[in-house]
């Protein structure tokens, strides 16, 4: 049966469907509705003293065998960054939702933005390779949350769901029961059943033996780490593409912006990355068909620089804030 559901609520429902057992978070606009849902639910729930505690509570519960999630916005996501690196190093699966608002700093808390794109990729110190999804509908919030939990289990790493204030507070109807996504469960046993396993943020072998002075080991390890993520990510190479043979221009947009771009598909070709990172491979062959590539985003050109790097040429960018409308975008193109 179709129901009227909000974007943030759909993320909660997706997490429930994926088998979440623990949620910790700290109130922040525009992400709070997610934690309100968990507070009412039967999922183990802690309102933490800050976002650093939130993610570390999640790390503990995940190592304890649970499927875990936390949700926040830019300021909280910044506070979590050190722990995100830890979770990549120590192999702790979890899902982190970042519902973006305008920054830097406290910025414009109720206005949606897409300014954390690079923070998802490079926010923590050191090199790591996160999988990042960005839904643009309420139904997709639900589905991608399940995919994010699955990808986290398969990479034993944090997976990020980007959202924005508009998608978060959007109400749409869909039938939760009609969405078919398999759920992948934890292979690793919980703490207590691992015969003396040591989890650490220091460089280590799979059994926990430290390798803090071994550069050769690091060089092999970092390649393996990237390959492992890429291999899993390949099964989630989600994107939308509207070809347009009459246009020489490819517009790239994601999240709420992509909904507006869709209304321009008669005039332009449209590409929407759903998996933001690692960048979907197909983008290269699609972009080749067009003379001009323009990334339209609610920031000052973050994904534009990513796309430029992937395509090996400088692409154009359109930055929009506040008025995310067809007219504003057309005016800037």
């Amino acid at each position: 049966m179709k129901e009227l559901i909000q974007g943030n609520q759909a993320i909660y429902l997706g997490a429930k469907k994926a088998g979440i057992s623990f949620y910790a978070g700290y109130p922040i606009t525009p992400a709070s509705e997610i934690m309100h849902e968990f507070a009412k639910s039967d999922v183990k729930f802690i309102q933490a003293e800050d976002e650093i505690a939130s993610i570390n509570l999640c790390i503990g519960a995940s190592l304890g065998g649970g499927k875990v999630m936390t949700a926040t916005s830019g300021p909280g996501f910044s506070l979590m960054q050190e722990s995100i690196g830890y979770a990549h190093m120590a192999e702790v699966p979890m899902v982190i939702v970042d519902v973006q608002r305008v920054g830097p700093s406290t910025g414009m808390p109720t206005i949606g933005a897409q300014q954390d794109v690079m923070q998802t990729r490079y926010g923590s110190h050191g090199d790591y390779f996160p999988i990042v999804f960005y839904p643009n509908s309420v139904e997709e919030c639900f589905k991608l949350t399940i995919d994010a939990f699955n990808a986290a289990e398969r990479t034993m790493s944090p997976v990020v769901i980007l959202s924005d204030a508009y998608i978060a507070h959007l109400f749409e109807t869909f039938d939760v029961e009609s969405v078919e996504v398999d759920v992948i469960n934890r292979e690793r046993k919980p703490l207590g059943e691992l015969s003396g396993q040591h989890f650490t943020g220091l460089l280590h072998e799979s059994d926990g033996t430290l390798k803090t002075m071994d550069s050769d080991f690091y060089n092999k390890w970092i390649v393996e780490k990237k390959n492992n993520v890429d291999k899993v990510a390949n099964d989630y190479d989600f994107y939308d593409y509207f070809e347009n043979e009459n246009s020489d221009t490819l517009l790239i947009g994601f999240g709420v912006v992509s909904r507006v771009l869709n209304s321009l598909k008669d005039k332009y070709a449209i590409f929407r990355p759903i998996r933001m990172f690692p960048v979907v491979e197909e983008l290269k062959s699609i972009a080749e068909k067009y003379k001009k590539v323009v990334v339209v985003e609610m920031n000052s050109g973050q994904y534009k620089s990513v796309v430029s790097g992937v395509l090996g040429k400088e692409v154009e960018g359109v930055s929009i804030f506040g008025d995310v409308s067809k007219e504003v975008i057309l005016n800037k193109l």
Partner: protein
Amino acid sequence: MSEINYTKFVKTEKLPGVWCDGCFVPALLMQSAVVFDQLKFKNSDTAVVSGIGCTGRIAGYFNLDSVHSIHGRAASVAEGIKTQNPKMNVVVISGDGDLLSIGGNHLLHTSRRNPDITVICYNNEIYGLTGGQTSPETRKGNITLTSPQGSKFNRLNAQKIVSSNDKYFYGRTAIFNLDHFKKVLSEALKHKGFSFIEVMGFCYETDGRRRGYKKPLEMIEEMKKSYSVTEEQGELKDNELGINKN
């Protein structure tokens, strides 16, 4: 004194470990392992979590599943483990810099939420791993790398923080009195709810040398003179070792 058996809970093959000569963190490791054994903990139902620092390296030496978390967040990780696995014995062991400085906020709130975990704070009054900077437990007037004219501030009072809650367990013991340590740790582990014990210790290499001590034993002898054990109930005075709980 009961038989000392630490082998069940210590990865003895990894000893003597990363610590300097004259450091008493290994004593903390061994004696905690003895208490786990005395309380009939199992390797499969106990987890040790540590933060960052000299004491933070202790987790990897326990013969059980352990977590060496980031700086200051061990209590949060421990509460997460306990919430997910309520039957598990979850013990945090870390230093004063980790638990009381960078991790201070989590001490306030983890103790307030009162999960059934035990936090052991090895208080050596200094940041040792980074070479000897002032910690929140450095004594006023002590010279460190970051207080060359002497530390200007009073020490943080962990007892007052922990005992500000309605229900609490605060224990203070010392690394030179291992029988007392084992007694206090045992009580803390048996306590239902959040228990916090401070183990008064020292660091010869990065603190004692600078302050003119010729060997670790001199620091121990001085500590022995300055602390006394009390069986009295209620708030512990600064020089008292004992248990303050409600």
